[in-house]
């Protein structure tokens, strides 16, 4: 069981971050204010570790402490090192530290990449082990409850489209650095590229309130997007339709141990292990189908099935989405414009944030997974296999690979889940505070005395 969990994490966490690491080299991202605050509150001379540090964005927040970065992903650690950080490659489940050596630890957007409850607990206990009594641990994980989007299940695979990111990075019109999420973790990384295009958002161009920095929840953007949504809802317009079908893309499948075992047994015949992961994914079709695109019946039929191949769905969406081609053109045509706009903030990202706010690993601004899905739809449109029949996973898989979609596994946490996990399974930690920050559940805990 643990082996399968590790395999899943290898494919849908480690390999993805490793592959996408090159895109993060030049991109800077800021730290979450609350995390910064935690770090700055540590006593001068403290020994601190960021477990799952990614490119090291938190390592230089406080110059009065000794900060060590640890990550599973070598390429990301190299980037952190090149920025002058003290880092190492290691595994959250087997931290290479002596007991009780560290004064504080942060784990930002990491634990949610572990695919079983047991592994999540182990990761937390490992961090507790290396803390001195009285030492503090801050944990951030993605919340299942998001303001503007809805996860149907807790175990999800979030796609990421690399193609667009590389396009952005090489785009000469791009004004300097585009804020992109930095992957971080012992596992985690963020998908870069928050650009997506939304025709509706383009119309809202004049919206000058976009101050969508990486730090903050795009409140301003939300304003913009809320407006769009409302408009959409009233008119049953495109944006609203777009949003709902994006939601349906957040396929997920429970990965509790027993289910995972069944999935593994089921997919054994598949030679393509990437396909394995995909075939276990279920799609959560929209229940409030305002997808008034003239193909509602098939859609509602599919609602019943949770095991549809996601790429079949993709094709379906294209067929049912009369405006998709126009959107696509619009997308391409506006690539430049978008990129430029992303200098100030992320357009569609903003739009999608309001609709499908997904906080990336280290709790960066909500990355529009929805937008990535849109891009993938665009890419897939070029394939021929658009039919309602089940399409072999392998075929679809090649379509996905062409569109450079990587899928990262997340176990999104319910309210109280992280707190409960610590309370019930990690006796050596005492929870000091917990709350929600930018779509993440966060906890600060302290290592008890006379423990471990």
């Amino acid at each position, binding site marked *: 069981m*643990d082996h399968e969990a*590790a395999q899943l994490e290898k494919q849908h966490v480690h390999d993805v971050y490793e592959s996408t690491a090159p895109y993060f080299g030049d991109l800077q991202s800021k730290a979450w204010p609350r995390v910064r605050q935690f770090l700055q509150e540590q*006593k*001068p*001379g*403290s*020994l601190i570790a960021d477990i799952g540090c990614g490119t090291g964005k938190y390592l230089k927040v406080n110059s*009065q402490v*000794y900060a*060590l970065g640890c990550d*599973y992903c*070598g390429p990301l*650690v*190299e980037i952190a*090192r090149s920025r002058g950080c*003290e*880092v*190492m*490659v*290691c*595994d959250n*489940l*087997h*931290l*290479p*530290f*002596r*007991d009780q*050596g*560290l004064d504080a630890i942060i784990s930002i957007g990491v634990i949610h990449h572990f695919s079983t409850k047991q592994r999540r607990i182990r990761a937390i206990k490992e961090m507790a082990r290396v803390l001195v009594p009285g030492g503090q641990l801050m944990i951030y994980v993605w919340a299942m409850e998001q303001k503007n989007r809805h996860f149907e299940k807790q175990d999800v695979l979030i796609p990421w489209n690399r193609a667009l990111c590389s396009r952005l990075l090489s785009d000469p019109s791009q004004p300097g650095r585009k804020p992109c999420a930095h992957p971080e973790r012992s596992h985690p990384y963020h998908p870069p590229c928050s650009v997506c295009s939304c025709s509706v958002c383009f119309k809202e161009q004049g919206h000058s309130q976009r101050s969508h920095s990486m730090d903050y929840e795009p409140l301003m953007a939300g304003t913009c997007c809320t407006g769009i949504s409302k408009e959409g809802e009233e008119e049953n317009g495109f944006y609203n339709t777009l949003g709902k079908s994006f939601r349906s893309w957040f396929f997920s499948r429970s990965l509790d141990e027993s289910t995972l075992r069944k999935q593994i047994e089921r997919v054994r015949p598949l030679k393509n292990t990437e396909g394995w992961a995909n075939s276990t994914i279920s799609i959560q079709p929209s229940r409030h189908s305002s997808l008034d695109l003239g193909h509602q019946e098939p859609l509602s039929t599919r609602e019943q099935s949770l095991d549809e191949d996601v790429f079949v769905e993709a094709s379906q969406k294209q067929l049912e989405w009369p405006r998709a081609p126009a959107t696509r053109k619009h997308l391409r045509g506006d690539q430049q414009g978008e990129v430029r706009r992303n200098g100030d903030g992320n357009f569609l990202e903003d739009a999608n944030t309001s609709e499908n706010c997904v906080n990336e690993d280290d709790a960066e601004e909500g990355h529009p997974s929805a937008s990535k899905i849109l891009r993938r739809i665009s890419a897939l449109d070029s394939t021929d296999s658009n039919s309602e029949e089940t399409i072999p996973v392998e075929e679809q898989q090649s379509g996905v690979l062409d569109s450079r979609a990587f899928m990262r596994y997340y176990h999104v946490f319910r309210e109280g889940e992280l707190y409960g996990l610590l309370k019930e399974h990690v006796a050596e930690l005492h929870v000091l505070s917990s709350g929600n920050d930018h779509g993440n559940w966060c906890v600060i805990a302290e290592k008890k005395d006379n423990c471990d």
Partner: protein
Amino acid sequence: MKLLTHNLLSSHVRGVGSRGFPLRLQATEVRINPVEFNPDFVARMIPKVEWAALLEAADTVPKGPIEGYEHDEKFLRQMHHVLLEVDVLEGTLQCPESGRLFPISRGIPNMLLSDEETET
């Protein structure tokens, strides 16, 4: 990898427990990185250092913190240099119990274990 980092590192090969500390350091390439001297910072570090491990790793280290070290600038500068300015770029860290070698490349220790080496 700085020597202060080395001072925190332990082998986690299955079964070694606390006998995995300290790791035996073999440096093949070392660089001296000037770091701004912050006496308060160094003074706070001193009590946290596992001295025996530091002595093993570094040649020119006092046998232990001297009395009144907090105000002894010479001592603090020496410790500052050893803990923070010596940077091991290439080398290995060896588990004293199992003999397992962890590589240091481009200043980065790789502490990952293979599947067989970790718990089942």
